[in-house]
């Protein structure tokens, strides 16, 4: 084990190297670019024995690693924002064919206008596709999750591709000390690549010709079943990883000061760190609040959330992505999970395009929410935390704009 000061992007690259990936392909896009740059360097220096395909687009990048994976290789790609949207068609194709594959997504806003800063609009746009989707909070977790992604994706109970999200710039370009596990230890923990079939002369497998509608239907059903099975696999992998490498994160969700909490913040990604700071401050004032950090968006941790939140008085969801015409995306997931419970529920859309929110604002929002909830159960699907520049000039609910 070595501790190095690494950016989130380099942490991804080190994990890919430790997983002994055979084929890498990617196309540059800020803030993902330094992942491929680092991997190219590792390959050219002979530190990583892999093929690098320098494609002409992201559509081709994912198609290329998917082709390699179909032939039996462990393969990896990385992208962000418009690159991910450009891949979208292949994202679905890869999942539907049940070929294990790993992709890093450096989360970034979607244009127009051009913007390279963090939000979760890009990765959450993929949530119906059949990929396992996880999002990290910090650089160490980026490395650990990327490494685990190979084991989860290649587990015969799962056989679905997996994407690992890390927040643009906040993680991707910010350094932090990262433990890099020993290669021998990784080799003994991560088995050789497993997959359900390969497309090769001797296998005579044909992937993807037209199937009867009923069978097509059952393929979707079986993906859903594998997503359910993945929940257990994710917990297992998190636990054994902790035993071997000394770090566990709680599996599908991380609970922070949840045990005696009455109010909860649900949040995902790097700003969960800010939420934890806010909770620390509130705890000093004996306010019973905790943070539930969503680590996996797919499979959605329904059972676990119900277990944690069923005794809650209120749940406040922070969303860095919105489904236009509806609510924040995590909010709608949380709301449908908590539907049978009579809990105060509020969704806040904030931090789009990297607009800073910070611990003190989160703290204020929690206090406001608790006050509202104590006055009587509330259900507020969407409020927006507007950037300081515009706050006060516009109502926090888009609905009120029309009412005026």
């Amino acid at each position, binding site marked *: 084990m070595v501790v190095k000061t690494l950016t989130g992007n380099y942490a991804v690259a080190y994990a890919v190297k430790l997983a002994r990936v055979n084929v890498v392909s990617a196309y540059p896009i800020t803030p993902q670019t330094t992942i491929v740059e680092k991997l190219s360097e590792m390959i050219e220096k002979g530190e990583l024995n892999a*093929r690098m*395909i320098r*494609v002409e687009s992201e559509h*081709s990048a994912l198609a290329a690693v998917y082709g390699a994976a*179909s032939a*039996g*290789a462990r393969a990896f790609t990385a992208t962000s924002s418009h690159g991910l949207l450009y891949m979208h068609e292949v994202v679905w194709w890869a999942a539907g064919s049940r070929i294990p594959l790993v992709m890093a997504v450096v989360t970034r806003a979607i244009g127009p206008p051009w913007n390279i800063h963090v939000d979760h609009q890009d990765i959450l746009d993929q949530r119906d596709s059949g990929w396992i989707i996880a999002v990290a909070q910090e650089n160490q977790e980026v490395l650990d999750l990327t490494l685990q992604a190979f084991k989860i994706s290649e587990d015969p109970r799962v056989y679905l591709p997996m994407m690992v999200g890390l927040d643009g710039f906040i993680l991707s370009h910010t350094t932090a000390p990262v433990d890099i596990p020993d290669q021998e230890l990784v080799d003994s923990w991560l088995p050789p690549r497993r997959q359900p079939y390969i497309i090769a002369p001797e296998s005579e497998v044909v992937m993807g010709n037209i199937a009867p509608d009923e069978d097509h239907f059952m393929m979707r059903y079986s993906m859903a079943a594998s997503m359910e099975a993945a929940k257990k696999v994710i917990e297992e992998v998190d636990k054994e990883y902790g035993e071997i490498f000394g770090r566990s994160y709680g599996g599908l969700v991380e609970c922070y000061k949840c045990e005696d909490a009455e109010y909860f913040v649900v949040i995902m990604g790097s700003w969960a760190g800010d939420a934890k700071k806010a909770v620390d401050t509130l705890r000093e004032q004996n306010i019973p609040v905790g943070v539930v950090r969503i680590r996996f968006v797919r499979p959605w941790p329904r059972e676990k959330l119900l277990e944690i939140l069923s005794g809650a008085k209120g749940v406040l969801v922070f969303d860095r992505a919105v489904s236009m015409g509806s609510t924040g995306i995590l909010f709608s997931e949380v709301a449908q999970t908590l539907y049978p419970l009579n809990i105060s529920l509020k969704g806040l859309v904030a931090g789009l395009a990297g607009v800073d929110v910070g611990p003190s604002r989160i703290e204020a929002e929690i206090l406001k929410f608790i006050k509202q909830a104590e006055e009587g159960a509330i259900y507020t699907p969407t409020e927006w935390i507007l950037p300081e520049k515009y706050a006060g000039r516009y109502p926090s609910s888009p609905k009120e704009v029309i009412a005026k």
Partner: protein
Amino acid sequence: MTVNIKRIPKKKFLMPGNAACPGCPETMGMRYLKMALGDNFVMVIPAGCSSVIQGIAPRSGIYAPILNIVFAAGASAAAGMKAGFESIGRKDVEVVVWAGDGGTGDIGFQALSGAAERDDDILYICVDNEAYMNTGIQRSSLTPYGAWTTTTWTGKREHKKNIPLIMIAHGVKYVATASVGYPTDFIAKVKKASQIRGFKYIHLLAPCPVGWRFDPALTGEIGQLAVKTGLFPLYEYENGKFQLSPLARRYKDPSNRVPVVEYLKLQGRYKHLINKPEEIKKIEEYIESIWYMIDVLEKAFNPKEEARKLLGSL
């Protein structure tokens, strides 16, 4: 390289009972592909008639392992497959893209150009039936001038995009044109290409009875007429050298060519222009321009060194 029909093994090269229309040029081509390559290859097939021809799972009508892939990703998925095989020590597996003219010259062109420029070790075959047949005969950039399609009801106004020439301009290892009308020529070209490492491109003309509106018994004959009229010259470009295929050489001389109306009149897609001399003239002029270009290519990429020197001194 010559191919003796009698020496081709007595075995199956296609699974009968597939979904191709009667007289389909694509299944003809698939048989020749397997005759040329034997068993050690995989196919990558982007959306098109060939996706449908396979028929209904769990059976497949094409006698080969296949990765079906989204429309635009034929070349990129194949490049990845090849790298995947190589990275696990299987350098011998041939990866073949089998894509339509739309999958090649339109939506898949970016990926094709990328793979060609990288010199990825794959064999790319464009099965050119001159329209989007799978979606019901819409024009592609490879539909020829004058042809009726369901998006060019009065005939396409632009000429066919010359993809093989664009591939030559990429400086790839091997480019050839072929026609299902001349099976052994195509088989020989596939065999030759499979022995070359790097990017190989073969453009296979595939007259489609459904989209071109002719009697399905004529698929082979129309494939021959395209060559005999001079519309579709057969040639090879290999490592910087260009040459007309032996059976096409005689059509360099216009007096040896079959008049193009003989080709046009067999096809319903040209019905509206068959009595318009000015339209026929346009097509004849196109043939002239094609052969002018062949002449230039022969001089520019001549196996004889003098011509190359000549060009160098210009």
